[in-house]
């Protein structure tokens, strides 16, 4: 007899656990305002990334088209992937001294793993991480960028 009772109680207990699960899913079914889906391309306007989000490396310029990069090449050395290439040029200063300045700060976004080591190691805070995240392009050559703008020069007062 006890076997029969055990059988029946097993069946009922099993059904009870099933109802417990259905209660959870049912709870969410009837509360559509708890939906967590973000409709990405539609919410582009309101979508905001965290300020530390690492999207890509950029070089901020001020309104006079000046940046802080001295062309020291520390970012190039610290990059584990070789995604930064520094091309420097030598200019003759008015006082006759030669000075090394940045010619092109080439950045291969396609090779970058966004590890932040270059930004961290930069002694003059010339490069920062931007919050952009839509990097898809039609041609991979477009992923190679020159970070210093044409005609830009170094800001006054940046230590070599």
């Amino acid at each position, binding site marked *: 007899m006890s076997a029969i009772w055990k059988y029946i109680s097993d069946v009922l207990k099993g059904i009870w656990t099933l109802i417990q699960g259905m209660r959870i899913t*049912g709870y969410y*079914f009837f509360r559509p305002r708890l939906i967590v889906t973000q409709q990405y391309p539609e919410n582009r306007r309101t979508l905001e990334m965290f300020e530390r989000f690492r999207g890509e490396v950029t070089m901020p310029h001020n309104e006079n088209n000046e940046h802080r990069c001295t062309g020291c090449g520390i970012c190039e050395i610290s990059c584990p992937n070789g995604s930064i290439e520094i091309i420097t040029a030598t200019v003759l200063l008015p006082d006759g001294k030669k000075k090394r300045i940045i010619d092109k700060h080439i950045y291969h976004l396609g090779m970058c793993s966004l590890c932040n080591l270059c930004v961290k190691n930069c002694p003059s805070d010339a490069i920062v991480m931007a919050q952009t995240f839509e990097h898809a392009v039609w041609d991979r050559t477009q992923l190679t960028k020159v970070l210093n703008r044409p005609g830009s020069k170094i800001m006054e007062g940046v230590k070599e």
Partner: protein
Amino acid sequence: MAFSIYDFSTLTQSIHDGLSSRLSPTGTLAMEWAIVGIVILLFVAVFGLFLVYAERKVCAFFQQRLGPMRVGPWGLVQTIADFIKLLMKELIQPARADKFLYNLAPFIVIIVTFLAISVIPFAKGLQAFDFDIGVFFVTSITAVGVIGILLAGWSSNNKYSLIGAMRSGAQIISYELSVGLSLITIVIMAGTLQLSGIVEAQRAGWFIYRGHIPAIIAFFVFVIAGTAETNRGPFDLAEAESELTAGFHTEYSGIKFAFFFLAEYVNLFIVSAMATTVFLGGWMALHVGNLEGFNHVMDLLPPVFWFFIKVFFVIFLIMWFKWTFPRLRIDQILTLEWKFLLPINLFNIILMTVIVLLGWHF
């Protein structure tokens, strides 16, 4: 031409009369066949697509998602777009498949669903064939569907497909028993196998109410066994996504895959429609005791509407199962059937017989 949405028999009768006045009896029959065929075809296509959409939305809401939203308002046209995509896709055939059986299998599966749908009474007079053995016909014809699944698995020349098909075979043949027995429980009460007769017998009250305890048990057994019959979660072992990738239809693509897909959803409808017809009073409106006013308001809704409300209720229940429970293992599925559902069912039949003999039902 008299037409009422409360009784379709006048409409069908007038069509029959109109046709037979113009054509010979053979021509009339052929014409009626054609009409019925086209109507069922359209119904299966439209309703199947709608069910796919409904399932995606329902499952999304269970999972705190939105589901399809892009194509059309609230993604309403999504399944149509999917269907067009499936139509245009290339039909890939495995190199060493059994070509004939491989092509035959989806047709068997889909034809079975057409046949089963033909006896479902949507409303009074809205039924293609009103057999006097309707219940028996449905249970026997749905059993043929497993042949299609077995053939699909065997002929695909894919090991996953074969395992899926074998599982499906074992499972469906077992659960046939429970489906049949739980229907018989009600047949004992109704005293007829004719589906329209069963519905008419529920004019005084739905069987799930009139037959109280055994009818409720039979209803749940039927829903569980019906879910297993349609290979839906938690009994979706035949396709068991995480184990067998896609089970028996792994190798099917394009429209042939669409057939399996459509058949699955139409089978879901058939199970729900049977549950509605047999347990929930078919097209009968919801009546509560002697509340005349309430009952009268309920009667204003046309029977077809009532039928579909009930069907969607059962479909929703089955979807709720699928999106909540983990999948069973093959031996557990068979254990559930042979050690739990079958004894309960047999006991239930005896109980029902006793109740009917003693007149303890309502």
